[in-house]
């Protein structure tokens, strides 16, 4: 591996983010259409603590 290659190892490589959108999974978030991307961004966590 050349010095240049070493300095570029991983450059431009994003993280894969898998989310369930409609019951199934897809590769990563960037495969979603605009509406579903917006929905994923809007999602809030549901409190899971305490007793049922």
């Amino acid at each position, binding site marked *: *591996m050349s010095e240049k*290659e*070493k*300095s*570029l*190892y*991983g*450059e*431009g*490589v*994003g*993280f*894969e*983010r*898998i*989310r*369930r*959108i*409609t*019951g*199934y*999974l*897809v*590769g990563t978030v*960037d*495969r*979603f*259409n*605009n*509406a*579903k991307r*917006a*929905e994923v961004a*809007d*999602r*809030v*966590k*549901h*409190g*899971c*603590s*305490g007793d*049922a």
Partner: protein
Amino acid sequence: MIVSVKKRDGREMPFNIEKIADAIVKAFRASGELDEQIKAAQSQMNLLGNDDILNSTALKVSAEVVSLLESSGKTTPDIEEIQDAVEKALTEGGFADTVKSYILYRAERTRVREVNTRLMHTLRDITFSSAKESDLKRENANIDGDTAMGTMLKYGSESAKHFYTMMMLKPEHSRAHSEGDIHIHDLDFYALTMTCCQIDLIKLFKNGFNTGHGHLREPKDIRSYAALAAIAIQSNQNDQHGGQAVPNFDYAMADGVRITYRKAYLNNMVKALMLLTGKEEEEIRPLVKKLHEEMAEMGMVATLVPNERFAQSEAHELSKTFSLETAMHAQKFAEKQAYEETDKATFQAMEAFVHNLNSMHSRAGAQTPFSSINYGMCTDPEAQMVMRNLLLTTEEGLGGGETAIFPIQIFRVKAGVSLNPGDPNYELFKLACRVSAKRLFPNFSFMDAPYNAAYYKPGHPETEIAYMGCRTRVIGNTARPENEITFGRGNLSFTSINLPRIALKMKSIDLFYKELDRMLALVRDQLLERMEVQSRKRVKNFPFLMGQGIWIGSDKLGWNDEVREVLKDGTLSIGFIGLAETLVALTGKHHGESEASHKLGLEIVQHMREFCDRESERLQLNFSLFATPAEGLSGRFLRMDKKLFGVIPGVTDRDYYTNSFHVPVYYKISAFKKIELEAPYHALTNAGHISYIEMDGDPTQNLDAFEKIVRFMAKSGIGYGSINHPVDRDPVCGFVGVINDVCPRCGRAEGHAIDPQKIEELRKKFPGMPAFLGIR
């Protein structure tokens, strides 16, 4: 003098008066305005035929057109100018009806032209824009719109949609679809396929099957069972546009484990006896093999959990040749070895199965088959071995530790079987929770929800509820009550209603129901129309689905028979999205915010369900109500309604409509409250439903909370549910888990480079790290 004409694309062509006359003849024919004259001419035994009167009149009008154009000084008129002149000449000639039909003809031509132009625009968009820029290319996230085959698929799909909208759909259905009142799902497959099917693998494997490209024999080992399961899913995918589900994965694969164990036991028995007695294989193998065959005929076989009857009988028989001590010694060895080998083979089989379903091609390589498998109810040790290994390989991930996207795994939860400590499959349930906490799958289906339990008959796996793809559920059967089972059945087609649109248009609750009824009737008619198109298909159109007898009843049909009768076991589903926005539009609040809105929400959904039940009874078919997930649709309806009604807070102020009956994703609510609110909608949506909980943090660190939520779903009457959490992965170091801005394992920030030395250091600590090759 007019010598040439300017066409729409700008080219000049020689002027030809006959072309004008032709169009006018067509208009006269359509209006019938010259019919009287023609009749009169005929009764007078006039030698002129009908066409002559038509032609001569048309030519006269055409000449008038020319003089009109010339008098306005045009020497190279364009098409629009000529058509204006034709209208004028016809009007002046007193042909009022013909003017009308000419205008209609002109409008129709314009429409066709525009549709073609629109199609060309669409195709251009597909060709020249990348998926990153083109929303159209990301309509379905499982298709990679950037690849050659993904693009080819999109060409076909968009052109087919244009064709069906123009040529096959009834105008009122086509209009309702294009204007966004309803959405006809999978319109690109309108004249081709039904949605999905639940494949009974046990029936299919018996005597082997033919993929259309070759015959495959009945499998004889767990590895070939698993391989054939994947092939069956792939083959059936080619005959349908929706998902492929296996409703009895545990039961079917257990058979493969049984055979594998028997073989492994035999082999190890031979080895043990060879070692213990010093005899050669040629001597021992035939003896043991013959003995096992004879015992099998009497119903005695070696089993994963050793059975006394076989063991005693085998020991007794072997002791006739060897000592009893040797026989029993060999048995012990063979049992242990065979168990370990079978376990290993099962793991490999499941690993390969998951790999296959994530890499096999469907649709010319644009997608992998859309697969789901249901399991969890079979308590045989062989099935437990299958499920445990399937879960373990899922937990491990694919080659580089990636989360498998397929198959969708559905773990069946039932008290007395898997839900509670002491239940035979409770350990598997715990494992399922652990795996789902890491990999998002399995989802959980609940056998004890009253509307699911209603169909269940113990000892009949075909009556266990199954879910397909994202949520589809097919079990009830009004058309043929004797077939209230999952095996071999599926959805024919489904169409969704834009509920918020109705609320926005009607404003009051009374009027809302009136318009809703109109939409329900419209969708019913459209579904029936499509079913008629499907019914005219023949077995040969579905070589695998029908030709191999997968669809219920199709094994009784001949190659050229219509599939009409057997389709009656399928379902016609009416879906809806945006209940939350509908309630806000009607009452100001959604069902998460107000008890009254929740009550109204249930009434609305109940109303739709009653319509489905009533029509099922009346027509002796299976109409069912579907909680539409709306991948492409959530944005499509919203954009149209925003244009029509503007931005209305809580209704059209976001980029999407909320999935089916869900409480909006942006609304802060506890997991338990959400489950309680959504559960009653599961009972009403008999064509399928799912509820999600978004869990905070890393659920693998909080498995108790994870399990508690699943148990609460079971208790609340949820039919199908899953727990969402972020699953991130750094492709460089292979870390899987929650990654915010920086990878917790290697410390790399998103998009940044890292010293390869550091990765090599980490590899010492994490030997399973994938080799990252991409230097970009």
